[in-house]
């Protein structure tokens, strides 16, 4: 199962997926147990959340949307986790069809690769 979106950061190979929420993700939702995993939170994220993800050693964050102002801040940081936005700037969520598929991917493994420029592809092993 493959998903395309706009991303940042290094490729990830065979990381464990942890589905967190389809709502906007809050930094308190991130805990030590999620270290090294690819987190799916299909709402909107902000720099505070990604900063905590970096602090905890989370491998990647898949999310619905982000404000472009915040995206610019993340793009300037090389140490944030790999990010994949499946919606658009300013969106709360991606398409419902994507949401339902991704929410069923808890504990599977995934590969996240840069395709061209800012375009990334997420492949989840079924």
């Amino acid at each position, binding site marked *: 199962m493959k998903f395309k979106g706009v991303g940042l950061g290094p490729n990830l190979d065979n990381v464990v997926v942890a589905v967190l929420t389809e709502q906007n993700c809050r930094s308190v939702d991130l805990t030590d147990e999620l270290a090294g995993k690819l987190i799916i939170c299909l709402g909107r994220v902000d720099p505070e959340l990604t900063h905590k993800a970096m602090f905890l050693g989370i491998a990647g964050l898949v999310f619905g949307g982000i404000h*472009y102002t915040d995206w610019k801040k993340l793009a300037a940081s090389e140490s944030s986790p790999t990010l994949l936005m499946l919606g658009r700037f300013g969106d709360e969520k991606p398409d419902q069809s994507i949401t339902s598929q991704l929410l069923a991917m808890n504990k599977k493994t995934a590969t996240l690769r840069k395709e061209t420029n800012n375009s990334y592809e997420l492949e989840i092993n079924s």
Partner: protein
Amino acid sequence: MHSRTDISRWLTFPLDPITIEDWLGNREYFGLVGKQDELAKELEIAYQIEQLRSKKQSGGKDLPLEIALSGMEISGSFALGNMWIIAPVGRVNFGKKVAIEIEIKPDILGQKKLIPPGEIVYFSLEQDKKYNVKITCHEGLTIDKKSSIALEISNCRRLIIDTRGRPISFWPSSIQTKKNKLYKEALNEV
């Protein structure tokens, strides 16, 4: 990418900076996608103007007048379709009362008309008539390097006068939005 202030100075309504930045981000990363409502259409016009001004895109003959006039800063006195455009060169001072004086014969104005700086105004003409137009520039403005010109205009339905100067001078942002609405009416109501 263009700044949100570059874009907002062409809009006819106030829009919050986050919405402008999100739209710009989507335009740059995804192109023209999503719902093309009135808001998106107006943002796209502003984007096209800035693309031309920053030379990221070159102009063409088929551009809408609103985009060509502001994006390419076309200046001088020239016919465009069934319109005649007058756009003087020089920096305008918004504190002054008169940028140009215009007289049209046969008389459609009642008397000599004074146009202040920073405006786009139009005069409707009858296409099958000939008009003699005399224009005198003030405050150092020039048209084709002259401070006054006399023209004979025919086959035109509209005479458009753009006194924003070249390079274009912008009003303070609170006034600019209201002016843009008037500019749009002048350029699009045919």
